[in-house]
Structures are given as C-alpha cells and as structure tokens.
C-alpha cells in the first residue's frame, strides 16, 4: 500500500504551482540533478536511422546516476529507439545505425569495437510484454548468472533469492521455484523479468513500457518496485502513461518526431514546461 501516497503528492503539485506559470522560464532545470548526482549517461549530437529513415535528430541528453529518467512522447517519436541504443539492441535490426556520442560512465557505446555482450551484462533490459523463458522460475533468474559461468548451486541459490527479493517476488514464489515461469500471472512474470535482469548485476536498467501489458494492480506493484530499485540502479523508463512518468521518475525527457523537445526534473516538466508542445502533450491536448 506504499504505492498510494506518492502519486497523490505528485498530483497535488500541479494545482499548487500552476498559478506561478510565469516562473516557467527559470533556467535552473539541469542543475539540481547534476549537483546531487554523477552523470551516468551522456549523449551528444546523437542521430539514428533505420535504413534511410532518420528517427533521432541530434539528441543531447544527460542522465543522472541512481535516478529514474522517464522518456515520454507520442508513438513513433524515437524514444524506444533511443532506449535500444543504450544497450545496442538495435544491432539486431538490419539497417539500424547511429552517429554522435553515447557514453555510459565515460565508456563510449557507439564504438564498432565495443564488446556488446559485455555491455548488455552491464545494462539490464525489461521489455514491453513479459518474456520469461519457458523454464522454471529458478532457471529464469539463474539464466544470466549462468552465462557468467556461475555454476555453484549455493551461489546461484543465494543470487536467485536476492534478485527475487529485490523484485518483490520472493514471498510469492519461494515455494515453487522449480515450477514453470509461464504459470505466473502477467505482473508476476514482469517482476520475474526484472529479477532476471537484476541477477546479472547491471549498473543501468532499461524499461520499455514495462506496464503496458499489465492490469492496474500489477502496474502499481511494478511502479512501487521501480521506486525501490532507484536506490541501487540508474533506471531509464519509456512510457506512454503520463501519470506513470510523474509517479515514478525523477527527471523526464519529452520527445517529439525524433527530437528532444524538453528535459528536466519531472515535477517541473509536468507543471511548468518551457515548451508549448510539452505543455500540450502533458496536459493531454495531443498524443
């Protein structure tokens, strides 16, 4: 039930600050986060294409460590593409390419020589639809560690328990770790996928609309989980749901037609956006 208070507090803020709309030009948007935190991801002049179709135009964006950053924007605005460049999943799509610079803790991600397998071990990803392997719950979580040649049963058991606890699933599944993951509900499956990603020990967690296939209750539990994981991981979440962005994220980036329109602390972006298009989008006038 911890999930309920924070959306309310977030929802209150628009009413209190919407009167001071004239302050929206305040130039201090980028500062609070860079003062509080190190930068985890830096993007400079990032453009991306699928074949000849340019989907991202010269993106400059910094994402702070151990915070939740939400990418919002209408369908086809390039937010998922951007997310998939952060772990180079776009490599699997023929014709996908990118120019510019992305750095994760100073390591450049667009180098052709980059070891993408190693990168993906440092960057976990949770997909739109829960996609557990057709294996047992235990084997799902142990999948990543086993790729890293962790085979000792006690080590694996410990790691699986830690990961399932971290994803708030342990109490529900501890008695049936050997049964198939496909028997879990959609929300449980998605938390299992989060546990599976955590078990590899990533620095960064990417979530591509993780709640879009879930019912409201499961969504609430995932959102609560995201807020808890923020203490340990840098999280980037793509979402179509503006309330969700306002509930879970510290900073928000708004994309439109492949361009980064505006970015800043979530409460500021939702209450006193600088750009007209941002305001129209977050107030539901389009998109």
């Amino acid at each position, binding site marked *: 039930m911890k999930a309920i208070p924070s959306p309310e507090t977030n929802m209150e803020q628009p009413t209190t600050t919407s009167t001071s709309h004239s302050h929206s030009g305040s130039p201090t948007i980028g500062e609070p986060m860079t003062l509080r935190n190190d930068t985890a991801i830096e993007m400079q002049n990032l453009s991306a294409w699928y074949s000849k179709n340019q989907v991202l135009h010269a993106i400059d964006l910094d994402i702070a460590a151990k915070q939740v950053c939400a990418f919002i924007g209408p369908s086809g605005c390039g937010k998922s593409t951007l997310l998939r460049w952060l772990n180079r999943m776009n490599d699997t799509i023929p014709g996908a390419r990118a120019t510019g610079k992305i750095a994760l803790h100073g390591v450049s991600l667009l180098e052709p020589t980059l070891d993408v*397998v190693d990168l993906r071990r440092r960057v976990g990803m949770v997909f739109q639809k829960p996609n557990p392997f057709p294996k047992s719950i235990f084997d799902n979580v142990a999948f990543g560690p086993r790729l890293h040649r962790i085979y000792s049963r006690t080590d694996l058991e410990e790691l699986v328990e830690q990961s399932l606890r971290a994803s708030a699933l342990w109490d529900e599944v501890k008695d049936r770790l050997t049964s198939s993951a496909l028997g879990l509900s959609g929300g449980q499956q998605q938390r299992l996928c989060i546990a599976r990603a955590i078990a590899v020990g990533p620095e960064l967690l990417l979530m591509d609309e993780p709640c879009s296939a879930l019912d409201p209750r499961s969504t609430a539990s995932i959102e609560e989980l995201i807020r808890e994981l923020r203490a340990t991981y840098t999280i980037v979440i793509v979402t179509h749901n503006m309330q969700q962005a306002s509930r879970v994220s510290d900073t928000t980036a708004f994309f439109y037609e492949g361009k980064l329109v505006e970015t800043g602390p979530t409460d500021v972006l939702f209450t006193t956006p600088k750009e007209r298009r941002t305001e129209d989008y977050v107030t539901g006038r389009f998109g």
Partner: protein
Amino acid sequence: MKTGRTIPQAKRILSNRLMWAACLGATTIAVLVLSALLITIAIEGTGALSWSFLTSFASRKPAQAGIIAPLMGSIWVCAICAIVAIPVGIGTAIYLEEYARRSRIKSLIQLNISNLSGVPSIVYGILALVAFVRFFGIRSADDAWTFGNAESIFYLQIPFGPSVIAGGLTLALVVLPIMIISSQEALRSVPQSLRQAALALGSTQWQVVWHVTLPAALPTIMTGAILSMSRAIGEAAPLLVIGGFLLVFQTPANLMSDFTVLPLQIYNWAGRPQSDFHKIAAAAIIVQLVVLLAFNTIAIIIRQKLQRPLQS
C-alpha cells in the same frame, strides 16, 4: 433483422450439412483405402511371419527365406543417415535462421533447398553414385585408399563402392532438404521476444541458440527428424541406382559391407511370379511397418519428455 442480401436460414443449414458430409466422405475414403491395404497385407503376410523369417537369410525356397540381411541393412543405413542428416540439417537451419544476414546469397540458398526437397530421389541416387560410390573416378575400386583391417568394424575404403556407408550418405542427401526446412520452421516459430530477452542479458549469439532457441524448438525439430527418417527407411530407388544388392547373404559387419534394405527385398520378392514369394513380401512389409512404428514411438516418447518442462 433481415438486412440486404442474406442467405436464407434453410440454405445455410443445408450447405453446412453438405460440407460436413463432404469432409466426412473424404476422411472415410482415406481411412478405407488405408485399412484395405493393411488388411490385405495382414491376410497375406501373417502366415509367413515367424521368428525364423526374421532371423534367416534370403533363399530360393520361399518357405525358408528370411529378412535378417535387409532388416539389419535398413538399420545400418538409416543409422548412418540419421547420424549425418540430423546434425547437418539442424546446423544448416541454425545458420540460415540465426546467423545469416538477409542477403541475396541467403535467398538463393533458401530457394535451392526448397527446390531440392522436391527433386525425385532417384536423382540423388545418380549424384551419390558419382560422388560416394565412384568418388568422381579419382581412384578406381581396385586401387582404393584403404584404412584399417578388412575384418575390423572401422574398416574404410575410398571410393566407398556400393557399401553401407554409401547407402547411408545417399539417403542423407535425400532427406537433408526436408530436415533443413522442418528445422528452420521450428526455429522460426520460437518467439523473437525470447531471443531478445537472452541477448539483453548478455548472451552471445551461440548462447542464445544453445540455451533458448534450440531447446524451445527441439520438440518440433524432433518431429521433422521423424518425418525424415520415415522417408529414408522407405526409399528404394536411389539405393538401387548406387548398386544396392537385391540378394545379400550376410549382415553388415562394417561400413564397407554389402547391403540390401527392406524396400529392395520387398521389391525383389513382389516381382517374382510365384505367389509364395508374394506372401513373404507381404510379411516383409509388415516388418517394415513395425520398424516404422517403433521409430515414431521412440521419437514421440523423447518429444514428450522434452516438452514437459516447457508446460506450466
């Protein structure tokens, strides 16, 4: 509720019943023909079936003839065929589905494999005669490269001549396209989301294949393997071309042994004028069907065992 042109109720019910009758009729015809075949074979053949029929060699006297040579020949040839065709078929399918980038060359290979699966098996026999039996004429049979002792199980000669290994490789050629295509379809049916999940966890391409794609596709691949082997065990034509023998009085001892197979033996006996030979041909057909059934049963059991952990 009538709007525009609707088909009257009575007509719809009638056409429904007609289609039901037509489909039932089609099924009945298929079942009838099959059972007629099985019953005639059973009536004609069961009398000749006996333990000594299974354990004796061929003979001029139908009463004393047996099928030990073609039975063992079929098992040897099919085993070699399976050992070659299944791994090569699965490997090719994995390459084409999981590794090969979309390109002209890939489509060309794909087109060729599809076409090859429709090529009459006798054509493979001709190819095998040149490649395996004669070794492109590079060495003659009298002047063959020899490895090992003629008595040893590892005895090998190149060119192979009309031997067990040549027969097995010929059948492997025949079934390879079927094996590749069915494995490809099995791999293609594995959801892309599972591959993505494995990749995102830091799997190499091979780890994705080995830990995710292949286990998920294996039950379907097994079905393809059963189909391929069922085809292989029934082939006679290509083996006739490479010089498979109609009468053999020994069971294979190594890869270079002479061989015959059940379809060849059935062909030999069924072509004779004496009706007693027709009876033992029918008995051999029963044996062939039992072997086929045993193949399928084993495969189904394996498939069930593999499938269990996948179900919730």
